[in-house]
């Protein structure tokens, strides 16, 4: 069977290493177009693992087709910003031009249409990935040409829309200042690991990936964990809707990223580093690999780096396969090990028990760039920028209703209003700060400052103009979380879907004031009871708008009189008569 041959060859390429299953599945998928149940069985057999284990993994990732589909695949980004900029019109035009519909699987079709969540191009929306190639700033008029090019087998990379703009609207001193390849590493080899960590400590660098954990402390814990092997992982999964700053860094400053990883390696005593790149950014892979090669040639990677005896370190790039949760550090590690991206129970934390059970420091792309810059310019230099608790600059990915969307590198401490003036959005109704998992700010909040002490943000800033239906956007955010919930734990798996349905009911004009209370209670439960950051923040769009925009909700619900969705007493009687007994009153239990 062809499948078995392909599978066996690919498994062999990876030395039969079970932990590389994600790579093997990606390779098999690329060759066969999908991963059938027979392929699952073949993979399981070749690796000598139960097939249920292989299915567990491949069924988890959004970009694995399980059934045959068209030779060309268009993933149209259908996130909130993209829909604000006309993605729905593009969708209709695509359906018309191809004669197929979104989501349908038609094996005879030469084009398959799929929706996907944010692909990191919100500053040039609407956008899509066509056979992995990003096409941006799409208009309805572009669609026939695109479809004709696919049907004619022409090279789509030559299409006018097949380009990614990496305009940095404001370059700051830290990330987008000019860099010299290798400067940070050459500095690092002159320092002891402790001195490197102390430099970050002086800089008071905090993680840029969301949680804001002090980087010096993370590296110190990781270094102190007594194990023979340590790992450096760069988190380039950038999945928060509306974020695209890591894309700009990877495209424009890859040497700073790899420099930061090498500095981390020196500090931790790591010999291996992995950059986890979201599948949506596969088009960046070639340039990243060539940067790695250059660094190897220059002695910035490999054995005895910069002539430093015993400082051996190299980096590999791991591609994902479509899962927002894989940005969560422990889920990312599971994914690196070739498993479904389910977060781990903590403790133990990755700095003690990470990749392959070894101490691992997972850091955001931007954080690692800061670390590289700090080594060159000094911790004190860095600490002088920004505010007391938020030193340095922050990259913001600005999109939505503004005249100048794009990447901005700004000093911490800037107010929301100052930002809005800069990006051309003074009339904003609301600002989604930190993406869906952050908070939705009203005008009353616009004097607050972007900083860890006031408004922390991973960098996603989505602006809603005065005309937007804000609650519909919140519903879409909530649907995103329901879609991306890994399903491991009950409150998130079920609760996110219930939240979305409840809000939908209200938007449909069928809600009452008691639904608003129910919505809030449910939101708090999902937040408190969920296992990881995804579930713990999934209710934020709803909870923060309930707090900041109560009038929008009040306008959409009816008064409670006479419109109860169901009668509790009657339901109780009915249940009792069916069960033949009275329900527990709670009094009989202690």
């Amino acid at each position, binding site marked *: 069977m062809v499948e078995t041959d392909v599978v066996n060859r690919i498994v062999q390429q990876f030395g039969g290493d079970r932990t590389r299953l994600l790579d093997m599945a990606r390779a098999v998928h690329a060759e066969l177009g999908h991963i059938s149940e027979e392929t699952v069985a073949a993979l399981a057999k070749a690796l000598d693992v*139960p*097939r249920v284990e292989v299915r567990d993994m491949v*069924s988890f990732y959004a970009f694995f087709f399980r059934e045959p589909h068209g030779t060309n695949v268009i993933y149209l980004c259908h996130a909130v910003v993209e829909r604000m900029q006309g993605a729905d019109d593009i969708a209709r035009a695509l359906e018309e031009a191809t004669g197929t519909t979104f989501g349908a699987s038609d094996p005879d079709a030469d084009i398959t249409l799929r929706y996907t969540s944010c692909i990191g191009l919100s500053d040039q929306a609407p956008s899509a990935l066509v056979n992995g190639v990003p096409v941006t700033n799409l208009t309805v008029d572009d669609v026939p040409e695109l479809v004709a090019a696919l049907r004619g087998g022409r090279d789509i990379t030559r299409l006018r829309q097949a380009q990614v703009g990496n305009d940095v609207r404001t370059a700051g001193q830290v990330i987008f200042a000019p860099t010299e390849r290798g400067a940070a590493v050459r500095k690092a080899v002159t320092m002891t690991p402790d001195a490197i960590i102390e430099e970050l400590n002086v800089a008071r660098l905090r993680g840029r990936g969301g949680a804001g954990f002090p980087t010096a402390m993370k590296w110190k814990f990781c270094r102190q964990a007594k194990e023979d092997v340590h790992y450096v992982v760069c988190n380039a999964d950038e999945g928060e809707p509306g974020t695209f700053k890591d894309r700009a860094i990877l495209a424009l400053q890859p040497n700073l990223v790899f420099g930061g990883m090498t500095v981390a390696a020196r500090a931790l005593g790591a010999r291996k580093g992995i950059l986890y790149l979201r599948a949506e950014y596969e088009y960046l892979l070639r340039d990243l690999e060539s940067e790695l090669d250059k660094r190897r040639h220059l002695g910035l990677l490999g054995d005895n780096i910069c002539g430093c005896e015993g400082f051996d370190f190299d980096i590999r790039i791991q591609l994902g396969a479509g899962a927002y949760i894989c940005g969560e550090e422990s889920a990312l590690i599971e994914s690196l090990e070739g498993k479904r991206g389910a977060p781990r*129970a903590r403790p133990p934390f990755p700095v003690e028990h990470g990749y392959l059970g070894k101490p691992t420091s997972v850091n955001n792309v931007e954080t690692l760039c800061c670390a590289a810059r700090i080594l060159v310019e000094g911790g004190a230099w860095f600490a002088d920028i920004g505010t007391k608790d938020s030193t340095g600059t922050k990259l913001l990915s600005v999109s939505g209703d503004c005249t100048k969307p794009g990447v901005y590198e700004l000093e911490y401490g800037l107010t929301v209003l100052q930002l809005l003036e800069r990006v051309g959005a003074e009339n904003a109704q609301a600002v989604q700060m930190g993406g869906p998992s952050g908070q939705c700010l009203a005008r009353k909040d616009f004097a607050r400052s972007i900083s860890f002490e006031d408004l922390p943000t991973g960098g996603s800033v989505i602006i809603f103009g005065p005309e937007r239906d804000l609650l519909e956007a919140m519903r879409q955010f909530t649907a995103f979380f329901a879609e*991306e919930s890994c399903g491991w734990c*009950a409150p998130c798996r079920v609760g996110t879907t219930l939240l979305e349905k409840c809000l939908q009911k209200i938007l449909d004009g069928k809600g009452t004031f008691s639904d608003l209370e129910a919505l809030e209670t449910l939101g708090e439960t999902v937040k408190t*009871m*969920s296992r990881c950051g995804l579930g713990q923040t999934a209710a934020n769009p709803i909870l923060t708008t309930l707090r900041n925009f109560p009038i929008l909700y009040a306008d959409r619900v009816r008064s409670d009189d006479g419109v109860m969705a169901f009668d509790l007493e009657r339901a109780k009687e009915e249940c009792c008569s069916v069960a033949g007994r009275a329900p527990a009153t709670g009094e009989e*239990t202690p």
Partner: protein
Amino acid sequence: MSAQNDTPETSGETVKLLIDGVEIPAREGQTILEAAADAGIYVPRLCYREGLPPGGHCRICTVKVNGRPTSACTFPASEGLVLENNTDELNTMRRQVVEMLFVEGNHVCPSCEASGDCELQALGYRLGMIAPQYPYQNTTRELDASHPDVMLDRNRCVLCGRCARASRELDGKSVFGFEGRGIGKRIAVNASHGLAGTDIDAADEAVAACPTGCLLVKRQANLIPVGKRTYDKTPIGTDVEA
């Protein structure tokens, strides 16, 4: 799957915890849930099963550790932890999670042969659930009656993973696993389709581990009459509190 299910290491040293104001001893590294149980304190739980590594799936065992919510079945005890367990706030949220599980699946307690032995149902009673306040999702879930002795009715599955852990850890097999994600997640079996293609046996620990009427041994229905079943007389958790 190793790292997901590691039982926390126990150093064996005795430490003290404060749970709802009561001081209890614990072995360092032992989970909070088990330390509480040793002291006769019940922390409501569903995906936990004695003798299996914890799963952390249901979150019903959520307690507050020094003010932060976390699952008692996975969190290791250490000196001086201050815990909240039996509070109105937590019990309300636990009940809501139980309700979520009820509406996620298709549970027909009155006609289910596990009624009275079912931990989900018993938790509903104990936590004061009357009827789920959320809308039923009415999802399509596959019933697998292919095996001669064991039946898998996914309508009643709460995705606790106990079957999978028991099969792996106790039976030395891998009959069960998960499939899909989010609300579409399902329990899967180690065959192209159907339990009949697996090496499951009715006597497997995996079957006994199921807390609901999802995994059942065939031809056993109603051998124990209603009224004489596990939770008919005493609420779930009584054994722990005894």
